[in-house]
């Protein structure tokens, strides 16, 4: 088979994987700390991308240079998405700290449905073209025709975010509190960690990276609507489970594996059934290795 074709699929898988990784981080961090699948996380990604689109369109009337528009609109969108993440947690999850997990999950589903329809009603149900404001970067000669400038930006951004996040979690005070809280919430409270603050920060950071993913992928695919977050969100969750939920390197690895699998399956098998593969992987991993690729096996406490 054509090697260039293989490479194109490889990089397209890497692109997807990078975006999943940016989303999966939020899932895995939130799950690690409050054991909740935050169904509304995909909506944050969508709202981030939408806000960036709106702001970029508004700024474009001011005659600013493209790069300034990109930076400003992204900045606004990232701030807004983090604010959304923060608010959602306060409204839909915080009052349910002591409730059964079923209640919190239903609340999360409700939030997801609400946010989708909020954007649908306030904006539009149609797909909107998404202008690519990403600057052109030179593509190495041997990769020309295989990947484009946008993909390079996506890889680099993801890599930088991952490194920063790892540093943040390893070395800052907040990062340490996060790790402590995810190990044992009660103990963390006892040693004086403000758990509510940790949870808020987790939502802020997770929403920030999700929105970044949303902006990048929308610039790459060139379109957006209110529904893009939901399926992307579910798949990113699958990636997080695949890597081992609660583990940050796991989320990245799982995302890359899932992105590649989808890309190759679509390229060599059938593109129609692309979405099916993620779910099949999910079922297989849950049956055979529920702790994921890099996760620690979970023992039930009795």
């Amino acid at each position: 088979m054509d090697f260039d074709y293989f490479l194109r699929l490889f990089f397209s898988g890497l692109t997807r994987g990078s975006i999943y990784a940016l989303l999966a981080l939020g899932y895995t961090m939130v799950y690690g700390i409050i054991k909740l699948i935050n169904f509304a996380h995909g909506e944050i990604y969508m709202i981030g991308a939408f806000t960036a689109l709106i702001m970029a369109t508004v700024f474009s009337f001011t005659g600013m240079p493209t790069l300034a528009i990109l930076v400003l609109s992204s900045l606004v969108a990232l701030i807004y998405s983090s604010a959304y993440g923060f608010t959602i947690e306060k409204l839909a999850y915080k009052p349910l700290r002591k409730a059964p997990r079923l209640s919190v999950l239903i609340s999360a589903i409700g939030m997801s449905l609400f946010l989708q329809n909020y954007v649908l009603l306030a904006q539009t149900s149609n797909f909107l073209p998404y202008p690519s404001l990403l600057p052109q970067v030179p593509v190495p000669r041997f990769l020309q025709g295989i990947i484009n400038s946008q993909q390079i930006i996506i890889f680099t951004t993801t890599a930088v975010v991952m490194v920063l996040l790892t540093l943040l979690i390893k070395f800052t005070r907040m990062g340490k509190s996060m790790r402590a809280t995810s190990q044992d919430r009660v103990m963390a409270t006892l040693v004086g960690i403000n758990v509510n603050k940790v949870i808020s920060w987790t939502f802020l950071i997770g929403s920030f990276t999700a929105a970044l993913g949303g902006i990048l992928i929308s610039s790459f695919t060139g379109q957006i609507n209110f529904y893009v977050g939901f399926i992307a969100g579910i798949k990113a969750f699958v990636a997080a489970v695949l890597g081992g939920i609660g583990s940050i390197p796991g989320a990245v690895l799982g995302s890359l594996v899932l992105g590649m699998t989808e890309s190759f399956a679509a390229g060599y098998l059938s593109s129609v059934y692309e979405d099916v593969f993620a779910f099949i992987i999910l079922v297989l991993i849950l049956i055979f290795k529920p702790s994921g690729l890099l996760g620690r096996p979970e023992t039930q406490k009795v």
Partner: protein
Amino acid sequence: MSRILEVNAMTMDFGGLRAVNKVDISMEEGEIIALIGPNGAGKTTFFNCVTGVYTPTAGNIYITPPGGQQRSIKGLKPSKITEQGLARTFQNIRLFPNMTVLENVMIGRHSRLKAGVLGAILRDRRTREEEEQVIHDSYGILGKLNLERYVNDLARNLPYGAQRRLEIARALATEPFMLLLDEPAAGMNPQETKSLESLILKIRDTENVSIFLIEHDMSLVMSLSERIYVMDYGKLIATGSPAEVKNNPDVIKAYLGEDESA
């Protein structure tokens, strides 16, 4: 008397941690024995292995129901082990909080009944009779534990002591020959502990159930148990009658620490 439980060199590992290390424990019919040890010694893990919550990494567990054959229960599902006649309570009470007291006990009868979905829908004579019987039996069990007055209350609304007793009632409903009680006196005041003591004795004598206790309340352990096993860091460090164990230097060391005994 016959030997009803035999645990041979049972080991349970969690990743790198050896929670239970080659433990041998046996039990005769009609005995009350206790497993004691400092927090984190592996007592509850031991219970969880015997009742099927975990499958031990190594070793074996044999039971011999009174009048039955010896068989291994290692690796069986918890529900199957309960069917074999072992019933347990939990350290942190695990009732069905939003079901009534009677229903909690009725659930205990589950494995001894047959009615299926079709029977439930058609409500044929056999199902009706079985249902009447289970209500009657369960009420009887509640009576034995002084819980009748709560029959239709939700389990979560019961006072603490009653919840502990309800857990025992629910376990008894499974018709066990051996009852494993995980810290039944935890959180009780001395008076409640006293009445728990006579309750346990009464159960042993009237129900023909052997009793295996995990307990921190030493006065209860010492007055109730006929033999005591002591665990520390996953290993058995002593066995014997209450008096023997009380004076065993290793046990004192495990409880009080190295310095005190030196």
